[in-house]
């Protein structure tokens, strides 16, 4: 029998994989993809909570998370192309002009 606990456990595992990916990867586009994976894991938890409590508020919040994620991807990828245009690189290590 599939309980909500199963779904929550899956969402925890996916979230941790996404977080490790953000820390490990150097290509900025892949880092973005890992952030998307974390957002999706959070969405799965929201939908599970909605099913658990028998109310639809969790699904509404997951819907808003999707909207915000779409906006974030649009702006983030535009910044990436702007950086790539000036630096010819998509690595997160090369954008260090404001570091020191």
């Amino acid at each position, binding site marked *: 029998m599939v309980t909500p606990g199963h779904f929550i456990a899956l969402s925890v595992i*996916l979230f941790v*994989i*996404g977080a490790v990916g953000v820390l490990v990867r150097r290509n900025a586009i892949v880092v973005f993809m890992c952030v998307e994976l974390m957002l999706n894991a959070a969405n799965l938890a929201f939908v599970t909570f909605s099913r*658990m409590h028998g109310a639809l508020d969790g*699904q509404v919040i997951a819907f808003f998370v999707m909207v915000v994620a*779409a*906006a974030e991807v649009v*702006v983030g990828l535009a910044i990436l*192309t702007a950086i790539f245009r000036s630096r010819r690189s998509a690595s997160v290590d090369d954008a260090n002009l404001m570091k020191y």
Partner: protein
Amino acid sequence: MSHTFVLAGPAAETSRLIGFWVLAIVSVGAALGMVLARKAVHCAVLLAIVMLSLAVLYLMLGAPFLALVQIIVYTGAVLMLFLFVLMIVGISAADSIIETIRGQRLWATLGGIAMLVLLSLVVGNAVIGPAAPNSAKFSNGNVTSLANLIFTRYLYPFEITSALLITAAVGAMVLAHRERIRPKPTQRDLAAQRVASGRPAPLPGPGTYAQHNAVDMPALLPDGSQSELSVSPVLSGRTGGASAPPALPSGTGTSVVPGTSGGTASPADQEAGDH
């Protein structure tokens, strides 16, 4: 007869269990592959697999609207945007394996394990009850009930979301806009530039007089040497600079006997080369 997304009965329970485990293994495996894959395009495809399996999980959880939004918005729009940006930024942009911070991978993995333990403890201590009894909100009436919520209780967040989307669209246009510093070259300027460059003719097309006429096959020059100019630099960059593919040996001007340039040389070709 009305169709519902949530099945009932012991057989349906077993199929739900099997479906959950298959989807869980597929999504976790694809997510791990996404973190480990070297090429960004492979990461995008694996992320698509994760998102599609999550859509089916939403369906199992009684959220058919969100499942379809997941497929349309995430897999359809967001991932296509990722692929377009990969096309602009360069498909050969593989990740470097040089660590700029010493021990970063080790510490990131350890931090991930610690995070997993912490979250597991939190989830293990939380009271996660069984699913609420099935109602129309989680099957046929899902869209109506969601619309009722969004347009009453969550109306202001919904309105603010539209402002966010407009801001994001304008921001993307501003960021992607390139200011023209010098005047646009006219056709006359381009023609003069072309003659001055010493190569008035267009670049040679790939595959001319070669064994195959694929786009990654360099054209053969009249003296039998290969013309690297005929292959797009994107294609030679995609296969990696270190090991040149058999179709594109490094170094121009190497005399190539027909029949030995490609990997699929037939005896007929070698005979033709002997004559």
